């Protein structure tokens, strides 16, 4: 599977927590992900929700998605149009939840990617390319478990399709 999109970067670059992705001010009172999507990243980049376009990608440093278990974080990003997140590393709960809801994450060096760069990632080979400059990097391979979940459209569709876990 190949995914391509324009990169959005943030300050801070590292340890972007789920409170920053979607604040408790909103996530506790709004149940509709499309509405929540209007507030993603608000506390660190108030303009992001208005600028992000369908298919865009997020690029960050280490430990993206740390903090709370709120699944609204990956869900609201997906609803906002984000098609993939590239980071040096991800926090554990966010990592599982993103694949559970069908949002692919790629772990690779990201220092070479700039705001607005158009990046293509091949989830099978792990090759990440800046399509404007041709610059390349290789990502950590996406574990088979995650590839299966992604292909099935997420965890709940996976369980329905197979009548239980079929991840090996």
């Amino acid at each position, binding site marked *: 599977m190949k995914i391509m999109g324009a990169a959005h970067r943030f300050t801070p670059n590292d*340890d972007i*927590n789920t*409170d*920053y992705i979607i*604040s*408790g*001010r909103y*996530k*506790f*009172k*709004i*149940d509709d992900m499309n509405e929540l999507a209007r507030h993603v990243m*608000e*506390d*660190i980049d108030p303009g992001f929700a208005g600028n992000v376009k369908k298919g865009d990608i997020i690029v960050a440093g*280490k*430990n993206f998605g*740390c*903090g*709370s*278990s*709120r*699944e*609204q974080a*990956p*869900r609201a990003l997906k609803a906002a149009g984000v098609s993939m997140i590239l980071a040096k*590393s991800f*926090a*554990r*709960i966010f990592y*599982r*939840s993103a694949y*559970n*809801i069908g949002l692919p994450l790629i772990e690779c060096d990201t220092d070479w990617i700039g705001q607005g760069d158009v990046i293509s990632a091949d989830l099978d080979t792990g090759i990440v390319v800046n399509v404007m400059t041709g610059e390349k990097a290789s990502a950590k391979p996406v574990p088979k*478990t995650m590839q299966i979940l992604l292909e099935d459209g*997420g*965890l*709940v569709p996976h*369980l*329905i399709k197979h009548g*239980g*876990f079929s*991840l*090996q």
Partner: protein
Amino acid sequence: MSMGQTIAEKILSNHAGKDCHAGDMVIASVDFCMSQDGTSTIMIRELETLGFVRPKTKHGMAMVIDHNSPCPSVDVAKMHKTIRDFSKAKSVPLFDVGEGVCHQVVPEKGKVHPGDLVVGADSHTCTYGALNACATGLGSADVAAAAFTGSLWFKVPESYSFCVEGELSDRVGAKDLVLQIIGSMTADGATYKSIEMRGRGIDSLSMDGRFTVANMAVEMGAKFCPFGFDKTTGDWLASRGIASTNWVTSDDDARFEKHFCADASDVVPKVAKPHRVDNVVDASDLRGTEIHQAFLGTCTNGRLSDLTAAADLMKGRHVKQGVRMIVAPASRTVLIEAMDRGVISQLLKSGASIVAPGCGPCVGTHAGVPSDGENVISTANRNFKGRMGNNKDVSIYLASPQTVAASSLTGQITDPREI
């Protein structure tokens, strides 16, 4: 000859029905799962899609309304109604308004036993590690899958051994110890790992102190934070009528990826500065930092010994004019015990205000949202920008109950040993 196992490897092996070691992928049976009011509605939607009838987890499941409790708005009321309706329709136990914070209520009600594997749709589910369990926070879909199938996939984590020697000095709390640990480990220093806490400094902690330490393991990225089982654990469970037969211990030849050591007697009052939990300094370094609100409570530090430590320090003194001191007991049981022992009366006489058992103002939904530009000192576990509901120059400092109480008296961040 089989290789020695850590607590995480043993508990996952027991639940997967086969011997496993770090790096293995297993499908393991889950003993219990929980969710709170911020995560339940998504879980309920997923369960309805799956055609859920009743939980297949060994000891069932529970939902807790604690993050917005009592309800602050019409929007939240709709979500609470969804949770109550589901609870009634599927006979899923619900701990409603006033019962307390999920991570105090769930263990108090006997839902967690030594040796258990527990998952929760709340990141601080790792708190139950204090009871010699493997417990971890997950998203709502994972918890729905656990409730629906009775099991879940896990990658068996590598383990870190964390040995704490010595004992904490007077007016230094378990919170100071764990803040010091997080400061040295950093926010992702234990990502995906199981941290086994051990040593005399850990054994000498009360259960309340152990819950405080295990609670914050996720602030360094950890998956599990299992403690050993001892008399303190057994007595705490027995006094609540909870059995403890399946406790586990790591083998002498278990493989730990890393070993860490600390001496509790060296620990001094600590503060995590805005806006990172690993931004830790000595409380005395922040002398002169004005505070406007002090908050005592949460799943980290809202337990009886936390309230008692604050009340003892505040006895005969009064909260500084201009400071709001807010107290949220961790549960109804904690509140009743604190009332019976005169702790609540002492806090009120010193100028504190008491809000309903629950999360209080920790997550910014109600019960103490700070004004623009204010500083808050809090016993909570997170100080991210905007966390308490206001992102306009609000600074949150995390500290122990003793430091929060001391600071409420002086109006500035204060080392409690100076009171």
